[in-house]
């Protein structure tokens, strides 16, 4: 993690882009570090599923009468009778060969199932992030500039309401108002084609964004207030720079660094919130897939989704760290000096 103490000096940053090779090295090192991390995560998830009470065979058969031969055949097909470590190694071996195995419920290739679901989740997360960033940073900045005014009070209140209402409650509320009463948006499903999909995903993305936006609003507001009080802002004003240039090049840019840090939290919040939102709006994304897989103890599918989410979080954090170097070139990775 970057050391935030280092930019608390009195000079603002406005500077040059970082050396490209340093960024490339950062990316390569982090990707290499990610491999053992992913093995550790998938092993931990595998161990938790193994230790948790429950049985995938029962998810398949439910309470139905079954013959002992059926039960034995199902256990054999998915290596459920192998020792724990052997099961994990068999899975890992498959993954190294580019095969995530087959799901227990549905007997489908895990990779295909995940790929089918991933597109929708990525679009949903993308639209939500956009809403969170644009509206969140905008409201936060406005609140800081009009400190104590009605925008300030209003945006803070909105943030508190958002963070305290679960995404599924917001979802049902939005559905009722905009789907049923006003009939502006569809009530369920994911839509076909680009425009139709955007139309279908607007309400879910809003519901999802609303639940995490408060973090961005509050952090932007605090960082802006702090940046506005800095000497370099006073200097800039004294130099007669336009207030627009001061706002965008000095205040906002410096204020964005803590906001970027919060982006990691936002990513986690979006992943967690998407599980509820997908169920409420009947969207077949990765969130509902994961919940289903866990409730049915579908080990290959749980492993596959855990791997995808881990990769997503690793990549998201990497992107955030690269963004740091773009926003603040003084931050150097791998031991370079400032």
């Amino acid at each position: 993690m970057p050391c935030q103490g280092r930019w608390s000096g009195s000079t603002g940053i406005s500077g040059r882009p970082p050396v490209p090779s340093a960024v490339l090295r950062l990316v390569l090192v982090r990707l290499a570090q990610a491999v053992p991390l992913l093995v550790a995560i998938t092993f931990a998830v595998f161990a938790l599923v193994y230790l948790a009470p429950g049985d995938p065979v029962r998810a398949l058969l439910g309470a139905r009468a079954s013959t002992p031969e059926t039960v034995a055949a199902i256990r054999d097909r998915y290596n459920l009778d192998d020792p724990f470590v052997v099961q994990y190694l068999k899975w890992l071996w498959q993954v190294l060969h580019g095969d995530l195995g087959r799901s227990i419920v549905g007997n489908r290739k895990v990779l295909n199932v995940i790929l089918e679901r991933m597109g929708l989740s990525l679009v949903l997360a993308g639209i939500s992030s956009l809403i969170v960033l644009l509206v969140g940073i905008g409201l936060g900045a406005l609140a800081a500039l009009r400190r104590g005014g009605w925008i300030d009070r209003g945006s803070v209140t909105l943030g508190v309401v958002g963070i305290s209402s679960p995404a599924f409650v917001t979802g049902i509320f939005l559905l009722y108002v905009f789907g049923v009463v006003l009939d502006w948006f569809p009530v369920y499903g994911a839509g076909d084609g680009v425009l139709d999909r955007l139309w279908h995903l607007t309400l879910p993305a809003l519901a999802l964004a609303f639940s995490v936006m408060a973090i961005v609003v509050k952090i932007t507001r605090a960082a802006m207030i702090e940046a506005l009080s800095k000497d370099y802002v006073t200097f800039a004003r004294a130099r007669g720079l336009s207030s627009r240039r001061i706002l965008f090049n000095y205040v906002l840019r410096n204020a964005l660094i803590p906001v970027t840090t919060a982006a990691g939290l936002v990513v986690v919040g979006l992943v967690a919130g998407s599980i509820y939102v997908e169920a409420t709006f009947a969207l077949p994304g990765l969130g509902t897939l994961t919940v289903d897989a866990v409730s049915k103890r579908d080990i290959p599918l749980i492993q596959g989704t855990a791997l995808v989410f881990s990769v997503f979080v690793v990549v998201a954090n990497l992107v955030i760290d690269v963004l740091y170097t773009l926003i603040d070139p003084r931050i150097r990775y791998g031991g370079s000096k400032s």
Partner: protein
Amino acid sequence: MRAGLPRRAFLALSSGTFLAGNLGLIRPAVGQEAIEEITWALASIPETLFVPHAWSTDNGVIMSLVQEGPLLFGDDLSLIPGPAESWEYVDPTTVVYRLRDSVTFSDGSPLTADDVVATIKFHLNPDNASQVASFYSAVESVEATAPNEVTVKLKAPNAQFQYWAAHMAGFLFKADQLADPIDLGTPDDIPLGTGPYKVTEFAPAERVVLEARSDYWGGAPVVQRIVLVAIPDAQSRILAMQNGDIDGTFAVALTDLEQWQAVENAEVYTAPSLATFVLTLDHEAEPFDDVHVRRAIAYSVDRQGLVSALLKGKGEPLPALNPPEMWSGILTPDEVRAFYETIPGYQFDMDKAREELAQSTHPDGFAFTAPVSSAMPDLVNSLQSLAQNLAQLNIDMTVQELDANQWLAGYFRHENLGMQAMNYYPDFSDPAAYPYLFFHSDNARVDGMNASNFRNPEVDAAINEANENIDPAVRAQALEKAFKIANEDVAVVPLYTPYNAMVLSDQYQMTGYNAFWYNIPWAMRGFGPKGS
């Protein structure tokens, strides 16, 4: 082998069913008016459409419109002809099915006896891990005895075997498709069927689109296109119905009934489910090894109160394991209710409960924990109500809600059973089905349903007799004996049988909604424009 019916009686019985089938129980076309398209919501769309690997009600709702067994369930739940125009027990262990000439799969190829044989052999092979293999446990051999004739030989007479042919366990596959089943059921290899619809689009977990087949042997369907969509959240389903986005759904919980009834453009249908909701008490461990403790518990259940409060009256208290309609073909519901009056029914009575407990080895009460699946809210509430009543007897009952899979795995691990709350929805309507599952010592084992560990040689013998005979009088007598002993000994504590509920747009009507809604081609059962 127990004495079965003479051959003539078998013929009479099977042809009787056959006649009932021809009296118009399949009514595809309600009016002349065709319906272009309906949208139907399910709680989930399966990942695979291959029923042997995904035996669920959601899959049944979809694939019962696409695939058929040799026979079908009629509106009255009896067996009626399907792709097989007749079936006959030539002796108690030999059944012959004769296929119609005109039946084709949706790719135009004709249904042959070889397809039927390949289907049954698929389930018999343990390597295929068929989830419905238990329907075929009685089969000794199967062969095509003519191009349009299949002969099944049974290991022993078995009255319950016959239902495979109409259940989704008996869905007929094209032999070619079963030869390489690895991707069967995925969007790359969708099962072909002989049913009234074919699958034209399948997005796993999202939606399925069905098109009517004009060449269906039973006549062209009224509804041309059926779009089935997944809406997992109950509130979202209600909003979708209110908004006119869906035309109906089978996913209606009794707890949401009032909300559904408030939707203006929708009509709620209910029908007896034939399900049984029971408590099992482990007869082989303290404290439930004492019959007086079990009777005290049985007297403490306020069945009528549970039906009124939890099921909003949409159900019936059960004095015994079988709902009255489950005896169909053997006793009429009124005869069943009269019979239930003659055996101990343990009507709610806390004084009698107190008397029984006083005679037991635990007169001062005891403490225990009852696990229950959080996916069965009715049972959770039933147990909580019972716990309050038991507190009056100084019995300290703790209700422990568990994740559905965790609870189910525990039930079938068959250890530390204590008290369990279970429900079972029928696969077919046969009065020996539930007694075999819950009372027979065969099932008092790991992966078995008899969590009471109830073992009684007389009851086993009576159930066997009812299973191996198809003479209604013999079966009735044997089962009455089994029920009498089971109730005296409190083999299970029956609670109630709820109704099923569905919702349909008020533009349409449907006359064939019954307990097997997920195992009938529902859009062909009196489904059409309202008032037609």
